[in-house]
């Protein structure tokens, strides 16, 4: 009998080696695991979850218009400006409340003020914005020559000078 195989007092049923005490697992890890932790979820809930069923598009959460989640949006970015924010819609004089997932005080006040600003710019009674009226070209001709001869102009300086030098020749002739 070696020293390792000696009997310890007060533990006659336990016989361990002194050279491998770390290999003994703790008592908690030696407890048997529950059956529900070992089974897959589909097996644990038979008839409730269909592993072959595809999720419907409506059941999936749609991504934000900016393609970024709220945690990575740049500060001050309010998403695609071309997309109407339904929180600014007015129905029967009531403005919709912002959705609860948004931070308080972010869109509810500022976006509404922006909508009011747009309405001021479009007001026809504003003296700072001129109202332009565009003209259209008339379809009928505006100019008609009474005589083709009257539209003749000298092509050269010499012709013009000759005409001036010939002044009064009609009376003399």
């Amino acid at each position, binding site marked *: 009998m070696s020293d390792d195989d000696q009997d310890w007092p007060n533990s006659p049923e336990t016989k361990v080696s002194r050279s491998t005490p770390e290999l003994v697992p703790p008592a908690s890890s030696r407890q048997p695991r529950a059956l529900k932790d070992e089974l897959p979820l589909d097996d644990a809930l038979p008839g409730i979850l269909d592993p072959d069923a595809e999720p419907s598009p409506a059941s999936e959460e749609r991504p934000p218009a900016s393609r970024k989640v709220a945690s990575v949006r740049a500060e001050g970015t309010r998403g695609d400006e071309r997309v109407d924010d339904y929180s600014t819609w007015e129905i029967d004089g009531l403005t919709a409340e912002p959705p609860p997932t948004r931070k308080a005080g972010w869109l509810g006040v500022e976006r509404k003020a922006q909508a009011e600003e747009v309405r001021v710019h479009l007001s026809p009674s504003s003296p700072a914005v001129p109202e332009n009226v565009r003209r259209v070209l008339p379809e009928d001709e505006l100019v008609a020559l009474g005589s083709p001869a*009257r539209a003749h102009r*000298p*092509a*050269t*300086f*010499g012709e*013009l*000078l*000759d*005409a*001036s*030098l*010939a*002044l*009064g020749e*009609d*009376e*003399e002739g």
Partner: protein
Amino acid sequence: MYTNAGTLSFDLAEGLVRLGGEARLVVPASALMALWGGASPAARRVFGRALGESIGRAAGKRLATDGADLTQVMLDASPEAALSELAAAWALAGLGALDLERWGRALVFVVSGSPLGADGDELCEITLEGAVCVASGKSARVVRLERADTRARFLVSSAGVTARMRAELARGTLWAEVLAELDGPTSRGDA
């Protein structure tokens, strides 16, 4: 086409001023008018014609290409091109701004801002005559029609018409009425 033949150049080293190769003098307008006032009518006419002929040659040189007939180039040019060169040469002589008007068939030059003032209208009249004759190669006469402030109008026509205009103006007839009679019924109202 513009050439450097009619360019006014100042040679400070030699103390010379040239326009198209011709020597020029820069003299005070008051000194010129003092000389003008003391000259005889014949001397005035010689002086004015010589000044105008120099301007007409300078305008023709600026307009013509190498070897071209100066007068023919001027006659074949558009009224705008001819006026531009005549006005440039006129301005280089320091006689004011030159413009052109048509009153029916009549050709009327307008001189604005001449430093010689109303006393220099006779000189402008004779100078214009010399410039048009040399530039066009035609025998033309010039008579002053009117002066309003700094603008003076000069009619270019034949010797007979300018003589008649002088007589009518001396009688107090409006120059526009005389021009209307001279223009004849065939082209009256033609602008």
